[in-house]
C-alpha cells in the first residue's frame, strides 16, 4: 500500500498542491488528467527523484520520503521507454538484478522467465534502436517487473504507440496485473485506458486531486464542471452481456437491453455511446440494427453551440437549438433515444 500525505512540490511549470492519495495493495490505480496537470510529477515524486517540499510518502506504513530511489524497490516505465541504448534487450532487463548483486545463475533464469512471459525472448540479443515501439515497451515493462517491485509506476505507457499495439499492450497490462497482482499506478490522459484498466481512478487537474472514485462513478458523476468537460464526451453505462449472435452482443442494462457490435462474448461491461451518435425522437424508431430506448429528460445544458439532453435512462444526447424547438424538448418530457449497434462500444469491466 502506498500513501501520499499532503504532498506539495514545484518543478518548473509543474506543481503539486496538497496531494493526498492512498493506493491499496494489489490495486490497479489510474491517475487521469489533461496534459501538464502534474501527473508525471506525482510518479517521479513517488519514485524518489524529487523530495517534496512538503508532505510525506508512505510505502507499507514506512515513511520513504527521504529514501533515495535505488532503495525504494519501485518499478518505473516511461512513455518513451527509456531503454539503455548501449545494452541489448537481455542486458537491459538484467540491469536491476545485477545492481542487486543477485548471483549470475539466478539472474539468467529470472531474465529468461520474464522474457518468456512477455513474449520477447527472440529479441534478447537485439539493441533497443532496432525494436518497434511496442517491443520496446514490452522490454521496458519486463525490465521493471523482473526486480519484483513493490509498486509499478507507469507514465503514459501506451500513448506513444499506434492504436493496434496500444490495444494489445493494454490487454498485456491487464494480464500482468491479474497474474502478478503488483500494485500499479498508471498515469494517462486517455479515458479509454483509464476505464479498461482501473480499479479506481484519481482525476488530477492543475496539480490537485479533484476526484478519486471507481471508473463508472468518475464518468457518470463527475464532481465538478471541469471534470465533466474533461471526461464528459461519452455516455458510460454499466451492463452485462447476456447473449451474442452474428457478432452482435445483447447487453442487459438497468431496465432495458441494447445491441452492440463487439468481439466480447460474455461478462460485465461498460457501454459507451457518444452523445452525438444518439438521435432523439418522439416515436420509437424500429430497426434491428438500431437501439431505441425511451426515457424522461432530466436536464438540459448548453454545451458550446449545441445542447446536451440528459435522460433518466443514463443516456445523454447532443442536439441543436432547432431540434429542441421542433421536438419540444424540456425537462419531464418523454423521448426515444436511438443509436446504432455499430456506434455502441463495449469495454470489459
Amino acid at each position, binding site marked *: 500500500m502506498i500513501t501520499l500525505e499532503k504532498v506539495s512540490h514545484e518543478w518548473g511549470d509543474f506543481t503539486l498542491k496538497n496531494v493526498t492519495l492512498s493506493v491499496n495493495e494489489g490495486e490497479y490505480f489510474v491517475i487521469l488528467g489533461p496534459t501538464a496537470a502534474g501527473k508525471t510529477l506525482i510518479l*517521479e515524486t513517488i519514485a524518489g527523484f524529487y523530495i517534496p517540499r512538503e508532505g510525506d510518502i508512505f510505502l507499507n506504513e514506512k515513511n520513504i520520503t527521504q529514501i533515495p*530511489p535505488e532503495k525504494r524497490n519501485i518499478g518505473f516505465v516511461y512513455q518513451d521507454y*527509456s531503454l539503455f*541504448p548501449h545494452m541489448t534487450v537481455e542486458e537491459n532487463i538484467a*540491469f536491476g538484478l545485477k545492481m542487486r548483486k543477485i548471483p549470475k545463475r539466478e539472474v539468467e533464469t529470472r531474465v529468461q522467465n520474464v522474457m518468456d512471459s512477455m513474449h520477447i525472448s527472440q529479441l534478447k540479443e537485439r539493441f533497443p*534502436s532496432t525494436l518497434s515501439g511496442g517491443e520496446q515497451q514490452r522490454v521496458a515493462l519486463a525490465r521493471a517487473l523482473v*526486480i519484483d517491485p513493490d509498486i509499478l509506476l507507469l507514465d503514459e505507457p501506451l500513448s506513444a504507440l499506434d492504436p493496434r499495439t496500444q490495444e494489445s499492450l493494454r490487454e498485456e497490462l491487464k494480464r500482468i496485473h491479474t497474474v502478478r497482482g503488483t500494485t500499479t499506478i498508471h498515469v494517462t490522459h486517455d479515458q479509454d485506458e483509464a476505464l479498461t484498466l482501473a480499479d479506481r481512478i484519481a482525476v488530477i487537474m492543475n496539480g490537485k486531486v479533484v476526484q478519486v472514485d471507481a471508473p463508472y462513478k468518475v464518468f457518470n458523476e463527475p464532481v465538478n464542471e471541469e471534470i465533466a468537460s474533461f471526461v464528459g464526451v461519452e455516455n458510460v453505462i454499466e451492463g452485462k452481456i447476456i447473449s451474442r449472435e452474428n457478432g452482435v452482443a445483447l447487453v442487459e442494462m438497468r431496465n432495458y437491453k441494447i445491441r452492440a457490435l463487439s468481439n466480447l462474448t460474455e461478462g460485465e461491461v461498460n457501454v459507451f455511446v457518444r452523445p452525438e451518435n444518439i438521435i432523439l425522437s418522439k416515436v420509437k424508431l424500429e430497426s434491428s440494427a438500431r437501439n431505441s430506448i425511451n426515457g424522461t429528460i432530466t436536464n438540459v445544458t448548453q454545451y458550446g453551440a449545441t445542447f446536451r439532453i440528459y435522460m433518466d435512462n443514463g443516456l445523454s444526447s447532443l442536439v441543436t437549438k432547432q431540434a429542441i424547438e421542433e421536438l419540444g424538448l424540456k425537462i419531464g418530457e418523454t423521448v426515444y433515444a436511438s443509436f446504432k449497434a455499430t456506434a455502441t462500444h463495449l469495454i470489459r469491466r
Partner: protein
Amino acid sequence: MSIRKALRNVKRQPLSLIFSFVGSLLILFILLTLFNMIFRQLAFESQGFIEACADPSVISSILLTLYTSFLATLIAMIIGTPLAYVLARHDFPGKSVVESIIDVPVIIPHTVAGIALYTFFMRRSAVGMAFSNLGIIFEDSMWGIVVAMLFVSTPFYVNAAREGFQSINPRLERVARTLGASQWKAFYRITLPLAVRHLFSGAVMAWARGISEFGAVIMIAFYPMIIPTLIFYEFTTHGLKGSQPIAVLMILVCFFVFIVLRASARYWGRRK
C-alpha cells in the same frame, strides 16, 4: 545515385548548387594551402625533409609536443568531465557566467593568455612559489608548456563533453536509479558509456588545440622547444629552408595520429 540524376536534382535546386560551389572554395583554400607546402617540400626539396626526419632535436621536439599536449588533455578530462556533467544536468544561479568563463580562453589573444599565465605561475608569484616547493617549476619547463596548453584547450573539451551529456536523456539515469543503481553507478554504467564518443572527440580536439599552441607557450616556456616554437625559431634564423621541412613532418605526423584516433573512435562507437 547516378551522376545524371544528381545533376538533374541540382538543376531543380539552384540555391544548393550555388551554395555548394561557394562552400567548396573554403575547402579548396584549406586543402591547397597545405597540399602546396607538402608537395613542394617532398617533390623539390626532399633532401631537407629527410634531414629533418633524421634530426634528433626535431624528433624529441615532436615527442615533447605530443606528450605535453596529452598531459594537458588528461588534466582537462579529469577536471573538465565533472564540470561538464554539472553544467549539462543542473541549473544554478550564475550558470551562464560559468559558461562564459569557460569560453574566455578562446576569445583572448594567446600572447595575452601567455603573459597572464607567466605572471601567475612564475617563481616570484605566490602560486609559482608554492609549486616550486613541490619541485614543479613552470618557467622554461615542460610544466609551463602543459599549463599554457591546458589554458587554451580546456574550452574545447568542456564544451564537447557538456554537449555529450546534454544529449543523453536524464530519464535513463532515473530509470537506472529505480532499478537499484546509486547515483555513482548510474553515472558510471549509463551516462558515461553513452557520452564516451563525445568525450573522446572533445579530447581529440583539445589535444590538437594543445599541439598547435604557440603564443601562450613561448611567454612562459620558450625552452624546451615544442614544434611550433622550433618552427618559429628556424623560420627567423634560417628562413623557409629551415622551417618548412619540420612543418611538413609535423603535419604528416598529425594527420597520421588523427586518422588513427578517428578510426578507433568509430570502432568504439560501433555498438550504438
